[in-house]
């Protein structure tokens, strides 16, 4: 039997139904692969016993022909998702020892559909980072390396563990979350597919909150079809999340293989930022050309407020984070550092529990919300957000989907970017999508001169994920898949 971990969800699902192997065999193959891949530091907690029990239950269901859409499929779960009785810390020291007494809606949906949990995946602390260097549990290593080099590279962030694990085949797919690009940027840097659905498509209930008006759950998977299969199960209408939108979840897989003939693809001129690398520009042109050759129409459009999305994001996101993270006070859960009085205890616990990037963002957020500055910063940023959304609404008169690069560069080395603002610029192409609440998908489309994967991003209308899967599959069909050479 060939290596079971090399199978996509679609292929494994087929074989499990035909009983070519069991869910237990598939899970054991992943448990072995995870043990051999510790150097990547993608998993912070492994749950092999739980995985075996879930696989056994899946085998019983499959034997009766009662398997769910993900029956027996082994997944990795980002540490941001509450998993009952299992380590859930958003990779922060401040949630030390936290084991929720409840399960997030998204993971509950996955287990309902038969998926198997392999463990919890590393991430930037509280999802704040673009390189997975802010995790309390250490850096994640990208399975990809530059040509003729053994130097470690970052997998992107904040869903760096998810992206690395999917690229290294140590889970069939993974859950991730995206507040400013945290699904799409790591997917692009690891040659995987990541989709951030429309705000309100997946329930946020049981996902550790970062910036509530921007946070959205989504999958990272090996190909477009697997991403569609994952999103179908993750998405739902949830009475426990008032921002969960009352719309039925379509069968996204049906969108794959549809023709892009006549589809209008927008190329926003403002994304041709000064200093864009020639290889990113060439990749973008190539992607547009591929879609054109398949019958799509390429239309130049303008999204005039693009350049303001990132600075506005760095008001809105830290402001919401400073409020959300106020709950970590050393009283209800996690770390407590004793103090002279209760305020001293709060201050010492938070100083010891939050890492430098998280502290920086809480301070920025507190500052922009403080008396006298609220209108100048927060209200102005929310007005700019209205303008960013309006830009897209006007674009939808002319086009059905927007094509952009996913990231300004390929994967970089740990420590290579130390200036916070330079690190923030990693999200320059992805953050507009969160600000406007729209769906965006990153799909691998080529390699850099150093042999590293590069991704393109497609942006769609609200709740039109189906068209994104159609267009992304059309790019994937020409670009092919990208597999990191195994060195670990």
């Amino acid at each position: 039997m060939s290596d079971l971990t090399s199978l996509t969800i679609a292929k494994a699902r087929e074989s499990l139904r035909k009983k070519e192997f069991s869910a237990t065999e598939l899970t054991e193959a992943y448990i072995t692969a995870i043990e051999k891949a510790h150097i990547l530091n993608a998993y912070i907690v492994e749950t092999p016993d739980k995985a075996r029990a879930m696989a056994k239950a899946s085998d019983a269901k499959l034997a009766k022909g009662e398997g769910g859409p993900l029956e027996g499929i082994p997944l990795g779960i980002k540490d941001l998702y509450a998993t009952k009785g299992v380590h859930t810390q958003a990779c922060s020291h401040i949630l030390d020892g936290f084991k929720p007494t409840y399960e997030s809606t998204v993971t509950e949906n996955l287990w309902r559909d038969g998926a198997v949990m392999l463990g919890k995946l590393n991430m930037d602390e509280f999802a704040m980072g673009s390189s997975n260097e802010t995790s309390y549990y250490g850096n994640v290593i990208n399975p990809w390396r530059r040509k003729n080099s053994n130097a470690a590279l970052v997998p992107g962030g904040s869903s760096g563990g998810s992206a690395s694990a999917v690229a290294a085949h140590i889970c069939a797919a993974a859950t991730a979350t995206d507040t400013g690009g945290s699904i799409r940027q790591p997917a692009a840097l690891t040659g995987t597919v990541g989709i951030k659905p429309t705000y309100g498509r997946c329930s946020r209930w049981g996902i550790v909150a970062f910036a509530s008006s921007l946070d959205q759950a989504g999958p990272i998977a090996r190909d477009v079809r697997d991403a569609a299969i994952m999103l179908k199960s993750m998405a739902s209408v949830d009475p426990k999340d008032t921002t969960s939108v009352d719309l039925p979840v379509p069968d996204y897989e049906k969108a794959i293989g549809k023709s892009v003939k006549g589809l209008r693809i927008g190329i926003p001129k403002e994304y041709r930022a000064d200093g864009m690398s020639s290889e990113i520009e060439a990749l973008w042109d190539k992607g547009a050309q591929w879609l054109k050759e398949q019958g799509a129409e390429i239309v130049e459009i303008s999204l005039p407020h693009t350049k303001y999305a990132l600075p506005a994001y760095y008001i809105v996101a830290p402001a919401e984070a400073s409020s959300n993270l106020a709950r970590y006070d050393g009283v209800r859960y996690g770390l407590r550092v004793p103090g002279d009085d209760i305020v001293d205890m709060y201050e010492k616990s938070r100083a010891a529990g939050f890492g430098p990037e998280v502290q920086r963002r809480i301070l920025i957020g507190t500052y922009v919300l403080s008396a006298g500055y609220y209108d100048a910063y927060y209200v102005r940023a929310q007005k700019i957000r209205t303008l960013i959304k309006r830009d897209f609404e006007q674009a939808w008169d002319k086009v059905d989907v927007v094509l952009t690069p996913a990231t300004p560069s390929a994967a970089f080395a740990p420590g290579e970017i130390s200036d916070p603002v330079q690190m923030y610029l990693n999200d320059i192409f992805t953050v507009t999508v969160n600000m406007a609440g729209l769906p965006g998908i990153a799909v691998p489309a080529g390699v850099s001169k150093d042999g590293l994967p590069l991704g393109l991003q497609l942006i769609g209308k609200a709740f039109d994920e189906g068209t994104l899967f159609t267009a992304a599959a059309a790019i994937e069909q020409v670009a092919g898949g990208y597999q990191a050479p195994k060195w670990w």
Partner: protein
Amino acid sequence: MSVDQATVRRVAKLARIKVKEENVERLAGELNSILHWIEQLNEVNVEGVEPMTSVVTVKMKKRADVVTDGSNPHDVVENAPAAEDDYFLVPKVIE
């Protein structure tokens, strides 16, 4: 607008984060460089623009005002660093 060291101390106090005196200067520098970069937003004409309150155009959902959860105090304090008889324990706040 520029953040001085006194502002860093004040904001850290508001955020309930103990900042070591030797880190105040570095933090002031970092916050200033982020705020300076953000200042480009002042170029945008926002005259007459409504601030965004909801990113998707939906009506806020309401549910019936009935109890759907609760009566599980043990679960609530399960993860507390200090608890007794289903109460959170904190340092004494009232003399």
